[in-house]
């Protein structure tokens, strides 16, 4: 028979048989069916159930008692109920006292259960007198181990959470229903000048200037409809208001929190006064730089023109009085002023490359390279260079800046292949979509790899001006352009064996092929 075991003193004394039969006469049929159903019910419950007699002895137990306490049911029947409990520190009543009290009224309390192996575990116990049976107590015992562990873990987790919040460098406020402040950390107290008691329960708008509160409330309700983690008002100027009424610029990021108490929103607030100031200073510095460059372009070039101009006039119209040496010296004056002019131009280009706002558009690199190559061919009609352009990528970039970069790279390739016949320059691409690398290779003079790290510094040259003209700005410009596009540039070469310059651009999206190539 499943469900429970009964103690029957008579049965035990009578035939020594510890089985679960009673010697009571078989109850009438309807009672029997009621009993069957009760047994089925009692057998199902996950809790341990007992009936305790007036002498504190266990009369009836269900099978769950075995599971919970480790005793066989038949071993418990007839034993004192006390044996299932250990002394419960901090308990209001002992087990015995509770059972006693339950003879006249229901009692519910926490106790410490004791297993057969001596192990102690938390239990919730409900006791009640059994109607009609004087002195008998029914008991339901529930194992609270898991629940207590979960509670403890939750509390520990909450403690950790609060500790973490207090440590956070940002001011944090947690907002609950109706926009009321549920929690703030120490940083928020410091930032806004409030003690937390002054803020808890108040609407979060108290942290904003009055004139902004209405709009914020509307936004807050909107956020509640579609909560998501986000930086609030990126790019906008948000303001916070301190207790003393002063206002300051802030950045805010929001995260929704789901808790048992409902949906909360956590906001991290950062004082960006310093950052705004730094941004303003940077903008001012850029404007200063721009006006400086502008005046450089006027003021520096004019005297150069004078130097070159008057030297030329002297050479043309007063050559006779000069003599050979004099003429040569004036030629050198002219050459020097021309070099200086190119230097100024390149420097201005380099600074403009850094300053200009980039406008991103799809740029067909292959087409751009072909245009640059055509221009090179036009400018140097006496040269014959074999150009191979094998790039079909269309990438997001600033067309003007990328043109300058290609002009420099391809121009260099042309320049350094001057002694070669045939001169060979290729523009290719490698790598998977999203990680493309572009290469410009030439079979020209090359360079010594030992100096490779100097290549991209401004004014660094690995060839003397007698071999190849140039002032060493070009590659620094290319590097700056590539960097502004989020990429990197590198070079490989060997003396007398040509060079290969490679660069990547920002891998934001895969390049779009302008034509499908089979």
């Amino acid at each position, binding site marked *: 028979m499943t469900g429970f075991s009964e103690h029957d003193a008579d049965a035990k004394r009578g035939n020594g048989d510890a089985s679960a039969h009673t010697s009571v006469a078989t109850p009438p049929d309807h009672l029997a069916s009621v009993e069957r159903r009760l047994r089925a019910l009692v057998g199902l419950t996950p809790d341990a159930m007992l009936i305790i007699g007036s002498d504190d002895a266990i009369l009836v137990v269900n099978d769950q008692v075995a599971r919970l306490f480790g005793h066989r049911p038949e071993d418990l029947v007839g034993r004192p109920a006390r044996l299932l409990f250990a002394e419960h520190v901090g308990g209001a009543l002992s087990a015995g006292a509770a059972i006693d009290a339950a003879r006249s009224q229901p009692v519910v309390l926490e106790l410490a259960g004791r297993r057969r192996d001596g192990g102690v575990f938390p239990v919730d116990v409900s006791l009640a007198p059994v109607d009609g049976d004087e002195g008998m107590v029914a008991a339901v015992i529930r194992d609270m181990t898991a629940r207590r562990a979960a509670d403890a873990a939750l509390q520990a987790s909450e403690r950790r959470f609060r500790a973490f919040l207090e440590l956070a460098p940002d001011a944090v406020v947690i907002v609950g229903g109706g926009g009321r402040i549920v929690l703030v950390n120490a940083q928020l107290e410091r930032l806004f000048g409030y003690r937390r008691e002054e803020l808890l329960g108040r609407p979060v708008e108290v942290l904003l200037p009055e004139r902004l509160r209405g709009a914020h409330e509307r936004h807050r309700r909107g956020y509640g409809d579609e909560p998501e983690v986000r930086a609030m008002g990126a790019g906008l100027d948000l303001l916070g208001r301190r207790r003393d009424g002063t206002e300051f610029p802030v950045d805010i990021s929001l995260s929704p929190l789901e808790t048992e108490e409902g949906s909360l929103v956590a906001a991290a607030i950062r004082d960006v006064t310093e950052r705004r100031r730094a941004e303003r200073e940077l903008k001012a510095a850029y404007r200063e730089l721009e006006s400086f460059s*502008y005046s450089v*372009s*006027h003021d520096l*070039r*004019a*005297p*150069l*023109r*004078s130097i*070159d*101009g*008057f*030297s*030329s*006039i002297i050479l043309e119209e007063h050559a006779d009085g000069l003599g050979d040496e004099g003429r040569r010296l004036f030629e050198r004056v*002219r050459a020097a*002023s*021309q070099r200086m*002019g190119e230097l100024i131009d390149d420097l201005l280009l380099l600074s403009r490359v850094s300053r200009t706002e980039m406008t991103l558009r799809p740029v067909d690199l292959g087409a751009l390279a072909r245009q640059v190559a055509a221009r090179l061919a036009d400018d140097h009609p006496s040269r014959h260079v074999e150009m191979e352009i094998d790039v079909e990528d269309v990438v997001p970039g600033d067309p003007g800046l990328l043109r300058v970069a290609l002009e420099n790279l391809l121009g260099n390739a042309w320049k350094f292949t001057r002694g070669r016949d045939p001169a060979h320059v290729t523009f290719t691409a490698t790598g998977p979509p999203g990680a493309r690398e572009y290469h410009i290779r030439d079979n020209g003079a090359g360079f010594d790899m030992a100096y490779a790290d100097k290549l991209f510094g401004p004014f660094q040259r690995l060839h003397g001006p007698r071999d190849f003209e140039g002032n060493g700005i070009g590659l620094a410009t290319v590097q700056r352009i590539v960097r502004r596009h989020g990429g990197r540039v590198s070079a490989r070469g060997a003396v007398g064996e040509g060079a290969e310059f490679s660069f990547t651009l920002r891998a934001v999206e895969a390049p779009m092929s302008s034509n499908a190539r089979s």
Partner: protein
Amino acid sequence: MIVEDNDDDADLILHALERGGRESEIVLLRDGTEALGHLRAVGGRGDAPALVLLDLKLPRVSGLDVLRALRAEERSPSAPVVVLTTSREDRDVAEAYALGANGYVVKPVEFSAFVAAVQRISAYWLDTNVPPPERLL
């Protein structure tokens, strides 16, 4: 008519024009106010310069202001104005053309290129800019 405040540049322009061997009356003005005064005087006689070489960086009144005033006040025939300046800023180019300049040349640093530029400008506007014979009208 040359509007140029820099002495050296002025001399170089004159030199370049002389090299072209063209017989023309050359008027050199040093700032915007003088230039406008001259243009008004000339305009009052129903005349206009055959060519104006205009620097942008002028004291007191900028070259662009001169151009603006010139176009605003002139009656036909309008004077061809070529801006000859050191500035290669896009905004200056755009504004010069917007105000009605006929050409914009950045002064080359190299003298021979400078001479070539001045000569090309004057050749175009002084030699070729001639009204077609009446029969073809």
